[in-house]
């Protein structure tokens, strides 16, 4: 395959990121400098990301340790579920957290029995709670990977030397944690740095506004494009700075495979057993209870949902399919380029899309399109495109190793037979890459289905997607409808992922 499709795809991404950045820079209103509220937003963005990452990692250690050294019924299911928040729409989880931790949630109700005032989930602690909800599973998977990467022989050696739990922690486990934790912390810090939907739904006000939320508010409430552009520049600088640091620290991949077996240990005692059981039980409760509440609250209202919700769902499906196929159209040529030429491209693009926040790209696109068309008319295609770009690193991480294997095994045969260009794509790549392609399509579709980002800036009230509609229902305190819409959204996201992923597996020839 020639290189130009891959180069074209890379060029599109670079133009999308830096072209929008240029538009933002030209428009940025630096004359006024940064006001107190801007500084507050910067401070909050940084410290909430640091605290969210810190809490996630610290809480993940006992959970990962329990999963690493203990086999119990349901362990596999739990490990699989730890990967699920990835495709869980943020707004659905937020709704579940409100149902558990909110003013009328079950914890407040329980406290009420003892005459204690209800707690609130809105504010900075709500933002951090939601970030921990999303990233505790990721941190657990990353640290579990570290634990399982300690060769089983070392534990046997430790047992034969008569080492107790403390000795093992000192000689084997803490050195591993020192390796793994900086990377895990940094990944989560980066994720929380550009998290928009959580701040939109739970944050706000002077004490809990992130830079991205400030961009959105400058747009929606003040229509102050100069200030929005200014803030977008700041957001990009923060992302780029963090990505630069990440470049130096070994950041782990999160497509953990081979987590399905615990390592046998000989230093077991009842105290550890209790610790592990508690960690696993609390983590499961923390992760599952909010989702169960969404179901309990939402299922009864499914049949009486207003028709506008189904219209929004239809728009979301369009966006999800569009985004999934755009992701593929970008990922396959880039993967080909990576396998045949430059391996660093994957990481470079990964960091590029991390540094570029969707809101910043959205701001730039808005500034570029605004003079020519009504942005609301392009809300859905723009959302699909931005979502596709954000899904790309994950798609590449699935496709590139598989394509490398295909080319290693069959590249010479295909070259010898003259299988070039589209023939090679049709007769070799597509059939042999069905699994990773199905996975990548499913991931991109589910991520896009649940995305609440750019769409919030672009859409007018008639053209909302399902996550945005859900957010609006919450804003109107129609919590029953919101819960029902959340069940619909979650169901559709999981269904999309399942259909594509399944499609890649069924009848795949090995």
């Amino acid at each position, binding site marked *: 395959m020639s290189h130009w499709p891959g180069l074209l795809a890379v060029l599109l991404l670079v133009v999308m990121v830096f072209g929008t950045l240029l538009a933002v820079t030209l428009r940025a209103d630096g004359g006024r400098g940064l006001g107190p509220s801007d500084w507050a937003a910067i401070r909050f963005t940084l410290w909430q990301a640091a605290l969210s990452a810190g809490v996630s990692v610290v809480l993940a250690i006992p959970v990962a340790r329990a999963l690493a050294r203990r086999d119990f019924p349901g362990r596999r299911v739990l490990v699989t579920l730890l990967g699920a928040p990835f495709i869980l729409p943020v707004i659905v989880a937020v709704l579940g957290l409100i149902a558990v931790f909110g003013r009328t949630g079950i914890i407040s109700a329980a406290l009420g029995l003892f005459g204690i005032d209800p707690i609130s989930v809105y504010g900075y602690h709500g933002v951090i709670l939601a970030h921990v909800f999303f990233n505790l599973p990721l941190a657990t998977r990353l640290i579990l990977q570290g634990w399982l990467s300690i060769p089983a022989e070392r534990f046997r050696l430790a047992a034969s030397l008569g080492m107790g739990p403390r000795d093992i922690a000192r000689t084997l486990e803490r050195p591993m944690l020192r390796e793994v934790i900086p990377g895990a912390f940094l990944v989560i810090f980066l994720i929380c740095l550009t998290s928009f939907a959580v701040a939109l739904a739970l944050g706000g006000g002077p004490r809990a506004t992130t830079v991205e939320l400030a961009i959105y508010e400058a747009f929606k409430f003040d229509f102050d494009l100069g200030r929005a552009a200014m803030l977008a520049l700041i957001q990009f600088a923060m992302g780029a700075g963090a990505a630069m640091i990440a470049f130096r620290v070994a950041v782990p991949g999160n497509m953990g495979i081979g987590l399905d077996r615990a390592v046998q240990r000989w230093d077991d005692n009842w105290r550890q057993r209790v610790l592990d059981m508690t960690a696993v039980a609390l983590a499961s409760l923390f992760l599952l209870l909010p989702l169960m509440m969404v179901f309990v609250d939402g299922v009864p209202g499914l049949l009486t949902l207003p028709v506008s919700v189904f219209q929004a769902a239809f728009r979301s499906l369009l966006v999800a399919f569009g985004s999934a196929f755009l992701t593929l159209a970008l990922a396959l040529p880039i993967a080909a380029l990576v396998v045949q030429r430059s391996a660093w491209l994957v990481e470079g693009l990964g960091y590029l899309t991390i540094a570029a926040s969707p809101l910043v790209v959205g701001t730039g696109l808005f500034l570029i399109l605004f003079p020519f068309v009504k942005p609301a008319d392009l809300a859905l295609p723009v959302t699909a495109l931005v979502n596709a770009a954000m899904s790309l690193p994950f798609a590449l991480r699935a496709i590139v190793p598989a394509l490398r294997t295909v080319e290693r*095994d*069959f590249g*010479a*045969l295909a*070259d*010898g*037979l*003259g*299988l*070039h260009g*589209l*023939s090679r794509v*049709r*007769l*070799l790549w597509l*059939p*042999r890459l069905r699994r990773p392609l199905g996975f990548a399509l499913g991931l991109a579709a589910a991520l896009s289905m649940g995305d609440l980002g750019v769409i919030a800036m672009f859409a007018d009230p008639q053209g909302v997607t399902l996550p945005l509609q859900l957010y609006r229902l919450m804003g109107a305190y129609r919590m029953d409808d919101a819960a029902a819409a959340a069940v619909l959204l979650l169901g559709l996201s999981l269904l999309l992922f399942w259909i594509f992923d399944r499609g890649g597996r069924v009848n795949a*020839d*090995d």
Partner: protein
Amino acid sequence: MLTIENARIEMGDFTLVADLQVQEGKRVAVLGPSGAGKSTLLAMIAGFQPLTSGVIKWRGAVMPDDPADRPISMVFQDNNLFPHLTVAQNVGLGIRPDLRLTSDDKKRVEAALARVGLAGKEARKPAQLSGGQIARVALARVLLRDRPLLLLDEPFGALGPALRAEMLALVDELAAETQATLLMVSHNPEDARLLSDDVILVEGGQAHAPVPTAEIFENPPDALREYLGGDRHYLVPSDL
């Protein structure tokens, strides 16, 4: 005539040099210790391994860069068939790599399969075939490609002795029918004895010029003697 002129390949510590000629229509066995570069020699002729210096010619003309444009059919150690394509499709690739086959083309595919003893197996997938049958499918494709130079990179290494002899006999027949020049890498000196006119010895970073098989087994150079283990009885079989 296949001419390799001052060809040199360098990959890290590994070097292989070759400066030799192979007469058209000859059957040549490529022998040598493992890791010496037997497969690299074939990869270099087939165009999979770019030369550091030197040139490879066929009938006096420099070979094109694209492996598919070279006058070569190659059968690899493994992965000769695409597992997701049917037997007929795998063979059909030898006619048109985009698989847009006419009904005439399909008849030729059937005929080729019948020639290698696989009539009626068109719709099978490789996973449903035995090792010997897979090798036959690869040879059926070689028939349709109909290129003057056939390179075999230890294609029957995984087969048992009886099946191996059977496949060698088939290669012998097919090479005779297509008048192809044959280069075959083998670990097994017996293969060379059964099939080849000449032997190219690859050792010490060099591919030596071909020597008649009978001659080289009669009076093996040190490197070959060492490789074969110095068993004179085995080296000079009575029928040579």
